[in-house]
């Protein structure tokens, strides 16, 4: 199998890693860069646990080849907090108990931030359809949807 050398920007840092031709961005993030916050729930783009931003676009990193990431900017859950200050979504998920086991949480947070970045005032239906690509088996989504709506409201007021 042929190998590639990839140079990219991950969470603001420039990184350089080797990868195999068939390797996914998710595997490279987890196994080459040690960024295990993105999770593999299905490897088929159905669960959203591996959600990351690729040049500002929300993607399932299990469906992107690592070699495609060359020269691009990637944001993962590890880059969401500003130093020691949690992003308002992260804070709100904790305040409302919007997570149980927590394994889907990184994907939900990355996806929800992508929504609020493009639409600061989503309706409940907007939130539900935007997050329909992220599976959560613990919460029934109620507290997650509330957390996103409340964060949007807080951020608009800020």
């Amino acid at each position: 199998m042929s190998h590639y050398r990839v140079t990219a920007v991950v969470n603001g840092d420039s990184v350089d890693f080797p990868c195999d031709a068939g390797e996914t961005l998710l595997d490279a993030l987890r196994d080459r860069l040690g960024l295990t916050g993105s999770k593999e729930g299905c490897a088929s783009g159905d669960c959203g646990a591996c959600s990351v931003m690729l040049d500002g676009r929300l993607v399932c990193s299990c469906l992107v080849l690592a070699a495609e990431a060359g020269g691009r900017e990637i944001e993962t859950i590890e880059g969401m907090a500003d130093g020691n200050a949690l992003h308002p979504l992260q804070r709100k998920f904790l305040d409302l108990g919007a997570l149980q086991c927590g394994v889907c949480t990184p994907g939900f947070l990355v996806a929800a931030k992508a929504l609020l970045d493009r639409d600061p005032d989503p309706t409940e239906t907007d939130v539900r359809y935007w997050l329909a690509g992220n599976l959560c088996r613990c919460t029934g989504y109620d507290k997650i949807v509330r957390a996103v709506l409340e964060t949007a409201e807080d951020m608009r007021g800020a």
Partner: protein
Amino acid sequence: MPPDLEFTRKTSFETVGARPARPDGNDKVTGRARYGADVSVAGMLVGKVLRSPHAHARIVSIDTSGAEAIEGVKAVATRDDFPDIAPDAAVEGEGEENMWDVARNVMARDKALYEGHAVAAVAATSAAVADRALKSIDVTWEVLPHVTDVDEAMRPGAPVLHEDMRTKGLENAPRAPSNVAEYLKIAMGDSEAGFAKADLVVERDFRTEAAHQGYIEPHACLATVSEDGLAELWCCTQGHYGVRAMCAAILGMELSSLRVTPSEIGGGFGGKTTVFLEPVALALSRKAGRPVKMTMSREEVFRGSGPTSSTSMSVRIGATGDGRLTACEATFRYQGGAFPGSPVSYGAVCGMAPYDCRDVTLHCYDVVANRPKAAAYRAPGAPMAAFAIESVLDEIAQKLGMDPIALRLKNAVREGKTSVYGPTFGPVGFVECLEAARDHANARAPLGPNQARGVAAGFWPNYGGQTSVTMNVATDGSVLLSLGTPDIGGSRASMCMMAAEELGIGYGTVKAIIADTHALGHNDTTGGSRVTHSAGMATIEAARQVIRIMKERAARIWDIDVDAVVWEAGRVRPSGPNAGDHEPMSFREMAALSARTGGPIAGHAEIDAEGAGASFAVHMTDLEVDPETGRVVVLRYLTVQDAGKAVHPDYVEGQYQGGAAQGVGWALNEEYVYDAEGRLRNPGFLDYRMPVASDLPMIDTAIVEVPNPGHPYGVRGVGETPIVPPLAAVGNAVSRAIGRRMTHVPMSPPRIVEALDG
């Protein structure tokens, strides 16, 4: 119950009942929390499993020489690498696990009993090499006839999975082998006499298809066996003591040679109470002399881990004209996959447990079929039986022109009543749940065309069990709790809250970890809704020990009798003027003095908790059915449940909402679909479609609190019961919306269209 816990129960609380952020929260919203697949070590190999492509086949031979010859392959394991297990060996998992079965499920011996059954495994330097090695293993199969349907598996002449299986529990011991592992009759009173008193009898047959727990984190582990035979295992599990016991039994190890550390767990719902990869990873590591990491793909999770049973049920219930239930006779047939142990008897008793009906006969059949060995799934067995029973009750209410809640109120068990479940109930909150549902605004929401409301109840007995907890007091007055029960949905927060409550200190002062198997005595698995009850009780007991030690030390400092020292609001003080004039000392001051007053202060509790409080729930849902396509939209969903005392209401509500969502998914869509060859057709999240955010409305909750006298704070477990009523609540609503009784779960669009056309 430990003697210390017998004194007056608390009824007013400082910390318990609040909604603080969980102690493990920051790690979980930043991606730092480490789950099963998130750990790597130097020199680690990748382990992979070869699985049977056949639903039922004899393994004539396995030739691994081709795989072993591949560069980078460091170990290959088959049945020959595992000792055969005595037929009666058993260890505790969620319930008692028969190790002959578990060992054969982990690695097939003479036969592959389902598609996806593990037959060999490799450890290699990369995933690609491991995949190539799997393809090079040559298995010679003798394909056998198979059976996946529960009713077909019970028929005479069906393909037999285990030639030595004779149905247990029959009056005349059968001589012929059968797929019915056991028959069990559970009865009280005289059901025929009860039917004689009935003005109305409703009888129906029901089916439910198998559903998977659907945890988002696939099974994963990392095993390291050293040259001296000592082993370490990191894995995602609901019970690392159970993992240790099962792995040790399968591999012939001493318990003290195997240290199991639980990772964070990405969901379990009962599915992570047993072992799949763990013994295989240990065997590979032992053989290769290197650490081995294994993770399941989602497809492997569906094909090779444990879903729940599919069922076939027949229920007959009689009632008087004014709605009093007079008798129930029901037959429950649950297939539990390739090995015995389906949760049929749990289901049977849970279905009728909420009702004060004296004449009940339940026939239970535990059936094997060529499917993956069923694992526990949230209130194992109960949702299916509740679907059948609660559907018949709904039909009785319709035929009598009664409100479905009024019918249930008329027959609800209360304190002092006995149902077929067995024990006489203490204070229980079923009536309160029914009343809260009746009085909720959702009960009066207007309904449009093709819309209807469905109501159903659910019961789970809850459990206590063995728990071991250590509470260490640091010299600055902060407290560290070591727990042995994996935190699957916020239990660390609940334990810290109960510790803070008991010690009279701030919640933020208490931290909790989940310790490994070497650090604490045995802990039963996180399951059966036992942790908040049992680990909570042990935490409170450990805190009371700390208080006792502090009182003894204060007595020594003040040179007074220990009985003259009082613990109050997180401080020690003399009991009165006669005890001397001493300034009270705070928890923090006592902690700071520990080095000079006798050394470290720690509390321990090793308990086998009894007194679990029975749990009841009532669900009410409004939905709309599209009569052309059969598509169902859930408009409103209400869950009402007795929590005894909600320690952290956010996480109690979360259990109610999550269980309801799982149940709605099962009711409407989720299903193991098999083809004619006995192969699973939908082993992925695209085709095994669990509810997503846009499929559901907000899920309303009402927490009823009827304190459980068996717990010092009145706590009842809350995790299992929320999945018991939804199949029936949804089924009753769909049936009312379309005017036909739905009897087959899931009620997917084609089944609804079929019912409408039929």
